[in-house]
């Protein structure tokens, strides 16, 4: 027994000693970088390839990409690591989580990381629609990376069959409603065999709803992220319109429409139009047996769409040396060529105009013009809701939208309740 204990101790001290020894000799800078996977496709493989490419170009810097789940899990892990005093150097997190990260004092402004005028020009090279919620209180905290926006998809064959111009999508709410009604088909028993439109409403209902509100000329939150606008008559009108597509027009399935199965409905010909992320372009392109069109989200008074997706954040507590390495890596990940490569492989929107000038992107767009629509829509796009206590306030909006879409509450009452509750949550920030 005794000798066993002693042996155990010897072995473990030896192991510990070796461990310390090994790390003491390592001169490499190691950057841990957390990232989520939010769309289909071999994302981890692509990220690993990029990291390996960077390591080859930059000897002395090791990148350790850590796949950390979906967006919510990734920010959960990152903030837990921060509280435990072991923060990663970099992470890709939801653009809209900027307020949480700043409120938790977890990230450093990009302005403090960049040094040269060239760096400054680099930050200014991204689309303004993506930069809008990368800034808070006059400081830039994030670099756009995997950004998406929803577009309207339509089935050209069904348009032709319904006597509509297959090359033109609806331009506004009225047209979308008329088209949807014309495109809805019923069998002899009155059961619907083909829906006119599907705008997914489960899960994060607010995202696509922001497309409707923006199209009605209203912003859902203020730029400081301290106030929301849920009870605005125009927001109520947008929600009523969405609900009426199902209830009054019978052109959209009743109840909540599942985000995940909607692209399948479209591919299988169950719906003639859908609103969905550009992240599904490749999927629909590969699987649809019919020609399809892509267009801007129709609005009532103007075009409008939300942007979503993730940005790079720099975490607090890095040495100057590590910060420089982290900056080099983020710059490497966001060069126009890489942005183009990432966009064509995933369907995310390339984050800067320069990416669309690259030969790779031009070749892709020539083959598949629909890819350009998302970029052109960006000038009408606004960030998804970004306020303090963002997840909590988003949940209030989602609950209200879902209550309305399932017929549990009228639009004005649901949104008024959500507004009151949101004001209570945000009172510390006003």
């Amino acid at each position: 027994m005794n000798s066993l204990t002693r042996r155990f101790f010897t072995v473990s001290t030896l192991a510990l000693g070796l461990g310390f020894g090994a790390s003491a000799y390592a001169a490499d800078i190691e950057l841990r970088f957390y990232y989520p996977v939010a769309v289909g496709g071999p994302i981890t493989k692509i990220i690993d390839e990029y990291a390996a490419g960077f390591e080859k170009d930059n000897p002395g810097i090791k990148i350790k990409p850590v796949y950390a789940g979906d967006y919510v899990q990734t920010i959960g892990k990152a903030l837990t690591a921060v509280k435990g005093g072991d923060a990663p150097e970099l992470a890709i997190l939801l653009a809209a989580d900027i307020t949480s990260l700043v409120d938790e004092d977890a990230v450093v402004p990009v302005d403090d990381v960049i040094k040269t005028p060239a760096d400054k020009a680099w930050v200014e090279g991204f689309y303004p629609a993506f930069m809008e919620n990368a800034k808070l209180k006059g400081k830039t905290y994030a670099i756009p990376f995997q950004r998406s926006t929803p577009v309207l998809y339509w089935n050209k064959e069904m348009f032709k069959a319904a006597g509509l111009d297959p090359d033109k999508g609806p331009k506004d709410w009225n047209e979308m409603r008329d088209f949807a009604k014309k495109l809805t088909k019923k069998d002899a028993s009155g059961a619907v065999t083909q829906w006119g439109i599907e705008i997914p409403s489960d899960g994060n209902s607010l995202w696509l709803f922001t497309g409707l509100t923006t199209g009605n000329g209203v912003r859902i939150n203020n730029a400081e992220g301290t106030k929301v606008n849920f009870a605005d008559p125009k927001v109520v009108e947008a929600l009523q319109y969405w609900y009426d597509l199902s209830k009054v027009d019978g052109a959209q399935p009743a109840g909540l429409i599942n985000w995940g199965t909607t692209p399948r409905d479209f591919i299988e010909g169950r719906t003639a139009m859908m609103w969905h992320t550009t992240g599904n372009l490749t999927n629909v392109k590969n699987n649809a047996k019919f020609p399809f069109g892509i267009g801007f989200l129709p609005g009532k008074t103007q075009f409008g769409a939300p942007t979503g997706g993730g940005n790079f954040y720099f975490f607090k507590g890095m040495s100057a040396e590590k910060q420089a390495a982290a900056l080099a890596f983020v710059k490497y990940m966001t060069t126009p060529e890489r942005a183009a490569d990432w966009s064509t492989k995933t369907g995310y929107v390339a984050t800067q105009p320069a990416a669309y000038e690259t030969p790779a992107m031009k070749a892709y767009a020539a083959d598949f013009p629909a890819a350009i629509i998302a970029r052109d829509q960006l000038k009408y796009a606004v960030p998804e809701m970004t306020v303090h206590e963002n997840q909590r306030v988003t949940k209030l909006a989602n609950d209200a939208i879902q209550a309305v879409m399932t017929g549990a509450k009228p639009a004005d009452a649901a949104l008024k309740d959500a507004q009151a509750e949101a004001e209570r949550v945000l009172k510390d920030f006003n």
Partner: protein
Amino acid sequence: MNTLRLSLYGWLMVLPAATLLALFTHIPVVESFVHSFMSTDKPKRPSRFVGLDNYDSLVADPIFWKALTNNLIYALGSVPLSIAIAMMMALFVNDKLAGRSFLRVAYFTPTILPMIAVANIWIFFFTPDYGLLEQILKPLGLGGNNFLGSNNTALLAVTIVAIWKESGFFMIFYLAALQQISPDLKEAAAIEGAGRFTFFRRVTFPLLMPTTLFVMVNALINAFRVVDHIFVMTGGGPNNATSVLLFRIYEVGFKYFDFGLASAMTVVLLCVLGLVALGQFFALDRRVHYQ
């Protein structure tokens, strides 16, 4: 001296398990309890003692009550049914019939599948228009359902998935218990002229009671613990119709980072589970006949 040595050995034997249990179960429980009386740590407002504030916000939170009610409905819906189905399946595949092994495997399959995979399969069963259920119901004139997308049916839908998933697992326990029952009893009952049903009611069922107690405790705990499919199938929606306690704890803790409130809810969950287990052991123990 000898007894001291013996008990030292004993303690050393349980040390590894005890350490792990303490590290991952007991210390977190105590910490949750402590945190439930503290405000959530923020950079500008460090954590401090707030007494019952978190519990007050909990009582005032309608979603908490909704989740608690949902969870009770979910438990009451899934536990008795999954136990009854498990018992029936076990009786069925315990008999001598052709293809018995195949059936046993078939019944057990849902248990082997990961919950996330199960949830994805069931999403397509429940899908409106062309989902499996819709294809069966449509010809009967009962189509047009949106099971996961409406307030009335979403909770029922996730409960059915739980029953489907759990029954096969509990069947294994019943099967093992059935094989312990001596064939003499069956012969004796046959000589006495007892029918199959009487034999089941008077002999098999009482002899299965210890297993039923064990299964019931597990099923009830699982009803509060196994909620993975809710993440995949509904995300707690529509409008919290399928939000249950553990789901809500995750949401408050890891989406809102409100650890104080999440800890208070965890304490409530622990109390509920503790009460369930105590109640069952005291109320049912008297009715259970151990051989």
